[in-house]
Structure formats: C-alpha cells, structure tokens
C-alpha cells in the first residue's frame, strides 16, 4: 500500500523532458526577447523616423531620410575612417604582441603561473577607469608616461591628448596595454594544444626553429589567432568607454570613434534618437559584414 502511495506521489511530480526544457528555456528566451530582440527591432523602426526621445511627439516615418543624411555626411565617413584606423592599429599591435608574449611564456618556468596572472590583470579592469588613470599618466606635467619614454633617450614634454596627431595613438597604446593579454591567452591555449610529437618529428628531421614555427606552430595556432582578431576587431569597432574616458573624442573630433558619434547624436543636448538609431544600424551592418569576412577566412583555414 505504501509503495502505491509513493509511486502516485512521484507520478504527480513527474514532468516530461520537454516540459522541463520549456520551463528553463522560456524565461531566458523571454528575457532575451524583452532585453535584446525587441530593442533591436524597435531601434531599427526608430531609424526610419524623426523621433526625439525628449521631443514629446510620436515618431514620424521619414523613410530613408536619416540614412541618406548620414551616408552623405562627410563627417560621418571621417568618423568611420578614424574608427577603422584605430581598430586596425590596435588589433594589429595586440595580435603581434599577444603572440610574442604567448611564445615567451609558453615554456613553464618557476613563477610562470604568477607572471601569466599578472599579465592578465589589465583586461580585468574597467575601461572607463583605465581611461581616467591613463589620462593622468599622459599628463605632460606630472604624468609618468613621458618620463618612461625619456628612459629610451627621448625627452618628451608632449601633451599626448591635446595633439591632433597623437591623441588617437594614445588611445591605441592604452587599448593595446589592456587587451594584448586577451590575445595572449587565446594563443597560449592554441600553443598548448599542439601535440609534442610534431615538434619531435621535426627535430628528428633536423628542421630549423624558424621552419618549426612557420610550418607547425603558426598553422596550428592560426584558427585561434583569427578568433582573437575577430573578437578584438568587433570590440575595437564598437569601442566607446576607453576613448570617452581618455579624450572624449578630442581634440575637436580627431578621436571621435563612430560609437562616440552615436552617443553625441543620441544625447549631449541633441537627442536625435531617430538619426542615432540609423547610425547604430549602419554600424551593426558593418560589424556583421566584417565578422563574416573573418568567419569565412576561419572556415577556409579549417578546410585547408
């Protein structure tokens, strides 16, 4: 009798796998729709309107007007160019330095774990805080940056953030300092996955170190390097907080990345919500296109 009651109880509580899956998936899916999908589609809708969030008026459909205005605006193209230069310089430097660092700490030595952890610290910091700290460090009066450069025998009193030709490089330097460890980490995981027997065979064949690097290390790590480049390119293209904290887009607009321009149009007294949404959609399309190029390259690499 007791067994019957117990089996009835357990049957009462029994849920099928499908029901359980639904219980777990739907809250997540609902949140995703509410917080991501709906805002995305709503901003796409707003991009076709003249809406201003503080305008106290309903959005009015203006078709492609916002896109026309933006794409015919030389300033917008110059901000894309600035963003492109910034992304190219910072991702290239991060890739080279990250790869180099990974090669250096690839071999285990006493304290290598501790050193690896130390190297990873910059990427754990908040970009805005990093921006503000480096703002102090770049100060030509009391900042440490020019002092460190002077160790190389180049005495500097330059105000990096006030010079139109140097300010972007200042942001690149900080971004490289912050995100090189990320590339290093990915490359390091790739390096550790290379089977030792490949190198042993190469040594038996008397292959040079360069040959080993070129024919074994690089091809084996390439997919992970591409992934690192993909992630960093996307991040660099939509970078906002670091540049905002460091230069605010200045001097003038010489370091105004495209995301800062979106912010300027959306806030800072302008509140051109429709136009800012259109620019955000354009940036989204560009990022998707660039990502696809990388993914295609990645897939080709895998096939090869």
């Amino acid at each position, binding site marked *: 009798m007791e067994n019957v009651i117990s089996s009835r109880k357990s049957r009462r509580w029994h849920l099928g796998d499908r029901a359980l899956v639904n219980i*777990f998936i739907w809250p997540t899916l609902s949140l995703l729709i509410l917080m991501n999908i709906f805002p995305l589609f709503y901003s796409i809708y707003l991009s076709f309107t003249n809406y201003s969030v503080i305008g*106290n008026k309903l959005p009015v459909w203006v078709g492609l007007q916002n896109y026309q205005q933006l794409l015919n605006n030389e300033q917008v193209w110059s901000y894309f160019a600035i963003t492109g230069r910034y992304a190219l310089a910072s991702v290239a430097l991060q890739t080279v330095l990250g790869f180099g660092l990974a090669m250096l700490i690839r071999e285990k030595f006493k304290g290598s774990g501790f050193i690896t952890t130390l190297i990873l610290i910059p990427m754990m910091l908040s970009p805005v805080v990093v921006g503000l700290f480096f703002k102090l460090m770049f100060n*030509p009066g*009391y900042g440490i940056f020019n002092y460190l450069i002077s160790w190389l025998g180049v005495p500097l009193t330059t105000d990096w*953030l006030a010079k139109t030709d140097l300010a972007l490089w200042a942001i690149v330097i900080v971004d490289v300092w912050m995100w090189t460890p990320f590339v290093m980490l990915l490359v390091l995981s790739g390096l550790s996955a290379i089977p030792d027997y490949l190198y042993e065979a190469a040594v038996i064949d008397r292959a040079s170190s360069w040959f080993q690097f070129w024919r074994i290390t690089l091809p084996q790590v390439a997919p992970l390097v591409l992934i690192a480049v993909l992630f960093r390119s996307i991040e660099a293209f939509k970078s906002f907080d670091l540049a905002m904290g460091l230069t605010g887009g200045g*001097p*003038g607009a010489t370091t105004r990345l495209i995301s800062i321009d979106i912010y300027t149009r959306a806030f*800072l007294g*302008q509140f051109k919500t429709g136009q800012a949404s259109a620019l955000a959609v354009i940036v989204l399309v560009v990022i998707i296109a660039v990502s696809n190029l990388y993914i295609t390259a990645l897939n080709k690499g895998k096939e090869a």
Partner: protein
Amino acid sequence: MKKVFYIMILLAMVFTACAPEPAAPTEAAPVETAAPEEPASTAAPVEPAIQELTILWAEWDPANYLQEIGNLYEQETGIKVNVVQEPWGSFYDLMASQWAAKSDTYDMVVGDSQWTGQGATQGHYVDLTEFMTSNGIDKSVTPGTLKYYGEYPVGSGTYWAYPTEGDAVGWAYRKDLFEDPKEMDDFKAKYGYDLKPPDTWAQLRDIAEFFTRPDNPVNGVKYGVGVYTQKDYDGMIMGYENVMFSWGADWFDPTTFEVEGVVNSQEAVDALTFYRGLYQFAPPGTSNAFFAEMNDAFISGQVAMVMNYFAFLPALGNPGVNPNADKTGYFSGPAGPNGDRYVALGGQGLSVLSYTSAERQQASMDFIKWFAQEEIQKEWAKVGGYTCNSNVLASEEFLNNTPYNRAFSESMNVVKDFWNIPVFGEMLEPVNRILHPYIVDGQGDPKELLDQLAAEQHQILVDNEILK
C-alpha cells in the same frame, strides 16, 4: 527527484527576484515628528494635502544650501522638501530621461538656462508667466537673470523658471604673488604698469605671461592662467565666450538669429586668436578642462589665476581644501579692447515639471512663492546661495558676506548667455569640433574655422526652421 529539485530552485529564484522590496520606512513619519514645536504663523492648521516636494539639481554645494532652505519650508508648512542631487556628468541625461518617460518623480528641477527652450517648447515645463507676474516675482529679480534663466523666447515676457542660483564666470588669483614687492617691481619694469588684478584682457594676458615660468616657479606657481577647454558639452564655450563677448562679437544676431557675419566677424576672429594665445600660459594637461580641473590646478598651486564659476569658488576660500585659501583673491571678468565687458552666464532657474498632478504643481508654485520672498532670499544668500533678488544682491550685507560676493555682484550686471533654443545641443557640437583643435593645438586658421562654424550653424538653423 532531481527534476523536482531543479524546479524548486528555479521557483525559489523566480520568487526571490519577484519578491517585493521590504517596505521602506514611511516618509510621512519624519514629517510628523519633525513638526515644529513653535509653528510659524503661516503653518496650516490642518495637514497639507501634499506632504513632500522633490527637487532635482546637480550635485554641488548650492544644492546642499537649497536643502537647508527646504528644511526651513518644512518647519513653516510641514511640507518636506527633498533636494535630490545628481552628479554634473549625468544631470542632464537624468533630466532628459525623466522628460522622455514623462515621469512624475520630481516636482521641480533647477535646470540650466539652455534647457529652457526644450522645456518650454516640448512641454516639460509649466508656464509660470501668470504666477510670476501676478505675485510680483518677476519684479523681484534682476532683469538679466529673469531674461536668461526664466524667459523663453527671449523678449517674449513668457517665463518658465524662477531665477534661483545666479552664477557667472569669475576669477581667482594668488594674492601672495600679486603683492610680492619683487614681483611687483619686476612686472612694472617689464610691462610699464602696476601688477594688480586686471581691468582688461590684455592685462590679464600680460600677467599670465609674467607668471608662466615652468623652470623658475615663484612660490611653486609655474603657470599664469587656467582656462576652460572642455569640448564635450559647453565647457570650452563658457570660457571662450567671455573673450568673444568682450571683443564685441556674439553667437548670433539677437534680432534675426543670423549667425553668418556674427559668429565669424573680425572681432570673433581676434577673440579666438586671443583665447588660443591665453592657453599658451595654461598648465600642460588642461586641454580638456572645466570647473573641476580649474579648481584642481589652483589648489595644487600650479597657476596664478584661474577662471571658474562663482559657485565653485567657495572651495578655493576653504582652508580645509585649498592650502593657499588665505592668499586667494577674486575678481570679475575684465574688459575687451573697446571697453566692452561681459562675462559668461552660469547658474540655473527653478522650473515646475509638467508631468506631476495639478495639485503638486500648485504646491511647487507655493514653494517658489515662499522662496522668492526677500527675507527667504536673504537667508538663501546667507547660507551660500547666489541669490538673483535685486535688493539682496545690492545690500552691503550680501556684498560683504564672502570675499567673492562683490566680484559676483559686479559680474551679474554684465552677464551674457549663449543659445537656449531647443537645438542648442546641435549648435554646440560644431563649436567644439571646429574650435577645440585650434585652441589647444593651434590647428587651422581662425578665420577659416569661424567661417566653417558660421556655415554649419546657419544650416542647422535653416534645417530647424529658425532661419528661413
């Protein structure tokens, strides 16, 4: 069994997330306990329908002073006044988000003068014209403050804010340097006139140049002057326009709103060139500097003179903050080459937000009516607020209240403001983009830059149907 366990965890998480916040201590209680032991004669015999008013302002000392005044109001009426402070960096964004949401969180805002156009035309502010004129409030404040803080459109006689915190750009200087006999002799020998707080911008430039000695500092001071250069919003503009107005130039023709030939006039070109020259004597690293950086530069003993809003000068007179507080003097903005003398307006007006109930709006206006009384304005000035009340401003008591009040009072007679139209943000953007690289890095030709600025601003005004 595992499934049941997982479901229970999930449900527990959902319930935890959805559980109501523990009830906050009722805010009515302090009102009751704070009821004055000796109620003022104006205290209502019955409990007021509105028991609490909330005012939004930026996070700075004047907001604390307003809270003190609000406490007086509570003592008199039993209506609690909360002054909610938001850091300057996000103050406007917060207000805009409240407007966007048509939120009734705040009853009033002490808003920037340039917001007035948006507040008036987009329906965020309550029209206070009838209220202010019928109660004589419009006559109690100086005409300049009423025009710039309260009126929109300018000259229309329609008011949207009560001028609350008057402010203007003033100057602080190191008295110990200016009164040092050796420095005075050296200065006179070099420039041919006495070293004293400048009457003209040309003198200010000479003094700035004289004290710029990075390799041979005097009393630790290496640089002559600190000027506003911040390019994100209106910082650099608030610095440059002191010079521009005093040179006889302007942002626009006040009768036609035309910018061509005004913002790029020869006077404006000369003023821009001068401002760029002044930056040569500023401490390095102040290429994106506003009020906080000005005070920092002065407190750290780097500069002989700094420009800053009067509302930020009390920190420089505080020995707990500024080690040179007892050696700090203050002066009002100097005159331009033709004797014109104008200073950039700061400060804010108190507006009633339109998204609260009619009852709350009436209670807000009752507060403003009480606050505008001369006696209360005297108290406002006494606790540290910069009153806009004409009589209080002119009183000896006010002028001698602090070392900077006299300079403040002088300045408030020569204030000028920039745009307060709804598209002011769009008008700011090209100024920052085009002029900032020239001021901090000498990039471009001032005439060409101002021509470009005029063309872009003209287009903005045409696009927004302000100009035909």
